[in-house]
């Protein structure tokens, strides 16, 4: 049983799943398979044409009343077909590869650009926009996002890098690695990631963290609101600079997990924790 779960979690996300080519006409019925795609579609103004979303899609609030076609990991092919979509847009995951193939076999176009890297984001948005029939809106959205991201980058530019640990789990300690999407954001926010390099979600030995002595700790496993103050876990490592200086933050990372229109806001939240002085 555990082997099955391990296999599922260990499958790498696939490279670009784009099917032959998106329909040239403006699709009237769109199904979205991923929360980030849903947000992007609405930001592009294609919201009214989105007929169904995944169970994890929760933004903007109006999508909560839309029909659901399964989870991000395991979409229901039947439910999707029942919605008679003109195009299905998602993000690649180990679970939905089969679904994508099944949909293509019945002649439904599937577009699934892979937002694995920060640098790929503009193209991902462009692909989604093209598939939704609004390429110009796509360019505008890309431009806006780039502008806002650049503004944040400018604030922290030139500031000395801070050693940051971002943790997504305490027991065991799992960190955000430099090769992950969020890890890239951290780097852009002016942080030196103290997690062991080369792995997207490293399971970190605690003594390694103590030796690297992070100045800021962002812990997404603690609580639901951003709050200052360390939890008991970090308090037991009093030699850490972050603990001594009171820079241990709980963080609800939902927004920045999504490579979508809210990314700049999440990026700014992150940067504010790394370099609060840039906003005073």
């Amino acid at each position: 049983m555990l082997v099955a779960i391990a296999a599922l979690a260990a499958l790498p996300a696939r490279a670009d799943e784009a099917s032959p080519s998106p329909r040239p006409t403006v699709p009237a019925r769109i199904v979205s398979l991923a929360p980030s795609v849903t947000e992007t579609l609405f930001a592009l103004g294609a919201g009214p044409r989105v007929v169904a979303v995944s169970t994890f899609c929760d933004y903007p609030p109006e999508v909560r009343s839309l029909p659901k076609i399964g989870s991000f990991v395991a979409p229901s092919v039947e439910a999707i077909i029942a919605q008679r979509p003109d195009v299905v847009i998602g993000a690649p995951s180990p679970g939905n590869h089969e679904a994508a193939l099944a949909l293509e076999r019945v002649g439904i176009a599937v577009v699934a650009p892979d937002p694995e890297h920060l640098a790929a984001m503009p193209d991902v948005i462009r692909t989604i926009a093209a598939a939704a029939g609004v390429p110009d809106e796509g360019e505008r959205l890309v431009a806006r996002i780039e502008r806002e991201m650049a503004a944040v980058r400018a604030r922290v530019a030139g500031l000395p890098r801070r050693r940051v640990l971002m943790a997504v789990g305490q027991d065991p300690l799992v960190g955000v690695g430099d090769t992950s999407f969020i890890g890239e954001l951290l780097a852009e926010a002016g942080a030196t990631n103290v997690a062991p390099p080369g792995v997207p979600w490293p399971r970190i030995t605690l003594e390694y963290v103590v030796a690297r002595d992070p100045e800021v700790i962002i812990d997404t496993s603690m609580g639901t609101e951003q709050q200052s103050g360390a939890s008991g876990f970090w308090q037991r490592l009093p030699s850490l600079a972050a603990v001594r200086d009171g820079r241990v933050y709980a963080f609800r990372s939902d927004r920045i997990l999504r490579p979508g229109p809210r990314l700049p806001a999440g990026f700014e939240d992150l940067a504010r924790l790394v370099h609060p002085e840039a906003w005073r």
Partner: protein
Amino acid sequence: MAVGQLTRARLVRVNGVLLAMLAVSVVAAAAIGPVRIDWRRAFDLSLASPDAVILFRTRIPRVLMAAIVGGALATAGAALQALLRNPLADPHLLGVSSGAALAGVCALVLRPVLLGHTLVVPAAAFAGALASMWIVVGLSRVDRRLESYTLLLVGVIYNAFAGALLMFINSVVDFYQAHNVLFWLMGSLGTTDYTVVGALALYTLVGLVMLLARARDLDCLSLGDDRAAELGVRVERARVVTFVAASLLVGAVVSVSGMIGFVGLVIPHLVRLRTGSDHRLLLPASYLAGAIFLVWADTAARTALGGTEMPVGVVTALCGAPFFVYLLRRERRRAGM
């Protein structure tokens, strides 16, 4: 003595040697890790220096935890093997571990809602272990009789059921929680909290004492329920007490460190090869041997890869599986019993 009985001298000698080996292992393991410690600064008890924090807050609690967990698993394994008359029994077989895992995972997943205190997950898991124990015993009791065969079957079914629920949970949570769940299940001995270590030591001590008091009964039980009754054992009671004690050990361990396999299965066998099957020696020796084994396995798990660590269950399985096959073939080669 021609008869080969267990003497006090032997009991003391074997356990003494193992205890010494454990002490050495604990000290050595505390000195080993991916980070080099500056030993001049490491004994600063104000914990201002990272070396001291590493030694006293990350390594020592963890090594102690490994010793306690390894010992508990090995002893529970030996006891269950006697109870089920099956040298292939593993402490996770009886459903208590998966019940603990299920409860722990539920707490893990719901934690943001529950305003997590760090001990919510272990507490929930332990409660799950106790509940599972109660359920499995309850379901196995037919007409107020508790038979080993029934216990085994109910345990296996319960495992399957809990396992299915676990898979279900893992399929409906979001990606990051799924990862958390998976990692929790794989097991981790990392802790910085001496109160957890202390609490675990206490619970496992209770279970251990319960089992040691019944050691001779276990010898009799391993011959068969009728044989045990003929030798004066109150079979029902002995079975229930053994099961409860073993469940206490396993439940406490799984709550805090997840599922670590192979220790409970392989260590009793290894020990039996050297000490014989008399449970009065087998149980304490298994505890100590299990402790030593897991201390080293965990040292490998947390040191081999630099800053990242392998789940200790991986190390125990990698060592345990080939060794187990070797043991199995060796036993099969002898005349069948």
